[in-house]
């Protein structure tokens, strides 16, 4: 039972929340009013009601994202904590893996081990393998064997492989805590593609030592190692926009912050007493193991009275991302199922109101694309169902009155929606130029070019993702379990035929929509081109964006001046041996 008071948001957090929610509601109401006014002028039909309702919810979602960035852009940052103690608490770095590229994972571990040692911090590493494939297991054991050998000049590295993979990743960590958690005060949870500087790990331990009421401290990992147009655009966005969004999140969530499953430190006692996840009753997709376990663990920590915080200002935390749209959509399918499964958890007893709101937000992130699709279809249906124009509404009228679809209101609505989409990007770019943050991204001109290219690319990709997400939601709601496919990182370039195999159905859907709209009337054709054309070109876009992008565009700070742990990892990977981290070589020479 809980014996600690749940963390309460302070006044400042409450004000940020109220301001963001107020802006969001105001935007939603304004968009709805404009839509309703335009529809009334043309004769309000049943489909118009659907359009008005859907535009309300879709605008709410867009405005919420914009509000988060505005809150993040607001001045008055919290100063970094000073006078931290020396990080000396017993800590373990957990590396859960499952059928991963073992050579790369071992190279990352070698780089981190050397970096932690160089930072003067003592920790243990534990590789928690859930790998079941025989060949992959052999390679994995060979890759990690040199790191596990006892050596007085090295930190301890443990390795264990589970023969029963209950509970997936959360179960893997739980298994470790149940058997070995008593030996440690803190655990840094990583992903197979995570990298962290030793200094960062030391800082996290010190922060936890200094604040005994914090249960979990989340860092904002930056994406590294991308080479394709798609991957590099994501990498740029994660480096350029995400810190601002995360600062907005930090301000609004306060002590009820997020857990993103990795690149975070957790108090082992807190995790043990409050985060043993149950299997949900019934079968997947809504029953069984909890897929998006991190959100639930953050909510359970808060329920048990622990503070959960995110600090995007902590440097030296990295991860890798999918290099093409198909891999991204595959991962997104898993996240979609995980977030929709939270429908079962949102009413769990004892959660804080904000935790419930976070669940609703995660669910909405997948439902809203369906609303957008519904809005487009309803707009088409409204056009079909509209009454025939009445050119002489008054008796004895001399001149005809031409029907007016209230273009002014529709244009205002479109500008408003596009504005909400662009506001965060423009705001972040303006603030970065003013503060000279663009220097790390290759200067103001290059950053502006990168923002324009990223905006164009994300606009082209958006209708394709809308289709993938709509399909994912429909699949989950109709009871289809997507399972837990391993994230394929760096699977790279896709051919046009691979793009066609993955998105041929999107092309056909786009073509059908275009034909239907053209047949209905040209009014809507122009408005729907930005949606239908990328859909038709989906295979081409998928293949083209998986090709290598020029290095001059989407420059990120970690490309200009790579973090030492990234350089050490690449060297270790290049030499093909996890033993050859450069920091270690230097130590031997010294």
């Amino acid at each position, binding site marked *: 039972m809980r014996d600690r008071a749940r963390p309460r948001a302070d006044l400042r957090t409450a004000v940020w929340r109220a301001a963001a929610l107020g802006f969001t509601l105001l935007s939603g109401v304004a968009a709805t009013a404009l839509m309703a006014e335009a529809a009334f002028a043309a004769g309000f039909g049943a489909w118009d009601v659907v359009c008005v309702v859907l535009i309300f919810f879709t605008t709410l979602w867009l405005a919420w994202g914009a509000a988060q960035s505005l809150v993040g852009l607001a001045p008055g940052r919290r100063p970094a904590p000073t006078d931290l103690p020396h990080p000396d608490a017993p800590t*373990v770095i957990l590396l859960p893996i499952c059928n991963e590229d073992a050579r790369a994972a071992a190279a990352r571990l070698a780089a981190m081990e050397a970096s932690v040692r160089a930072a003067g911090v003592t920790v*243990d590493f*534990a590789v928690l393998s859930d790998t079941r494939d025989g060949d992959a*297991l*052999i390679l994995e*054991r*060979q890759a*990690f*064997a040199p790191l*596990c*050998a*006892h050596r007085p000049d090295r930190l301890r*590295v*443990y*390795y*264990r*492989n*589970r*023969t*029963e993979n*209950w509970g997936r990743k959360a179960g893997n960590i*739980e*298994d*470790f*805590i*149940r*058997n*070995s*958690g*008593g*030996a*440690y005060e803190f655990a840094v949870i990583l992903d197979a593609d995570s990298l962290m500087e030793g200094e960062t790990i030391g800082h996290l331990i010190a922060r936890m030592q200094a604040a005994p009421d914090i249960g979990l401290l989340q860092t904002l990992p930056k994406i590294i190692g991308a080479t394709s147009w798609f991957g590099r655009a994501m990498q740029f966005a994660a480096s350029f926009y995400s810190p601002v969004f995360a600062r907005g999140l930090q301000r609004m969530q306060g002590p009820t912050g997020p857990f993103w499953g990795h690149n975070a430190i957790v108090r*082992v*006692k807190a995790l*043990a*007493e*409050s*985060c*043993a*996840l*149950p299997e*949900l*009753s019934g079968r997947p997709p809504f029953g069984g193991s909890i897929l998006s376990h991190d959100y*639930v663990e953050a909510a*359970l920590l808060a329920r048990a009275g622990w503070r959960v915080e995110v600090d995007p200002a902590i440097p030296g935390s990295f991860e890798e991302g999918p290099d093409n749209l198909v891999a991204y959509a595959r991962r997104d399918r898993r996240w979609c199922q995980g977030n929709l499964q939270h429908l*079962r*958890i949102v*009413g*769990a*007893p*004892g*959660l804080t*109101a904000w935790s419930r709101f976070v669940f609703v937000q995660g669910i909405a992130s997948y439902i809203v694309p369906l609303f957008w699709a519904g809005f487009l279809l309803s707009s088409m249906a409204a056009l079909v169902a509209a009454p025939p124009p009445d050119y002489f509404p008054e008796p004895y009228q001399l001149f005809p009155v031409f029907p007016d679809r209230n273009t002014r209101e529709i244009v205002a609505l479109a500008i408003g929606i596009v504005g909400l989409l662009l506001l965060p990007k423009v705001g972040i770019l303006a603030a970065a130029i003013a503060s000279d943050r663009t220097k790390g991204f290759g200067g103001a001109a290059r950053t502006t070019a990168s923002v324009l290219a990223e905006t164009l690319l994300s606009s082209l990709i958006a209708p394709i993702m809308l289709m993938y997400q709509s399909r994912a939601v429909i699949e989950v709601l109709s009871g289809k379990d997507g399972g837990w496919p391993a994230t394929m990182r760096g699977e790279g370039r896709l051919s046009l035929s691979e793009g066609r195999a993955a998105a041929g159905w999107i092309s056909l859907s786009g073509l059908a929509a275009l034909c239907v709209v053209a047949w209905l009337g040209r009014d809507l054709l122009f408005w729907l081109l930005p949606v239908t054309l990328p859909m038709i070109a989906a295979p081409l876009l998928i293949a083209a964006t998986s090709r290598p992008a020029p290095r001059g565009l989407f420059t990120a700070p970690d490309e200009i001046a790579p973090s030492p742990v990234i350089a050490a990892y690449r060297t270790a990977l290049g030499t093909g041996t996890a033993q050859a981290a450069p920091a270690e070589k230097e130590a031997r020479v010294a």
Partner: protein
Amino acid sequence: MDQNLNTLNDLDDVDTSPPYAPLAMPRQILERDRREGVIGALLRLLTARNA
């Protein structure tokens, strides 16, 4: 919860098992009793502060 270490030559000669220091992890309750019905669930949600 079997966590046998598969035996292969490369890791055979090394003890790679993490230290044995068990820690209790009570299973958390996330689902409400379905028998309480919608009104009961709503009442519990409204009084969640004391849950």
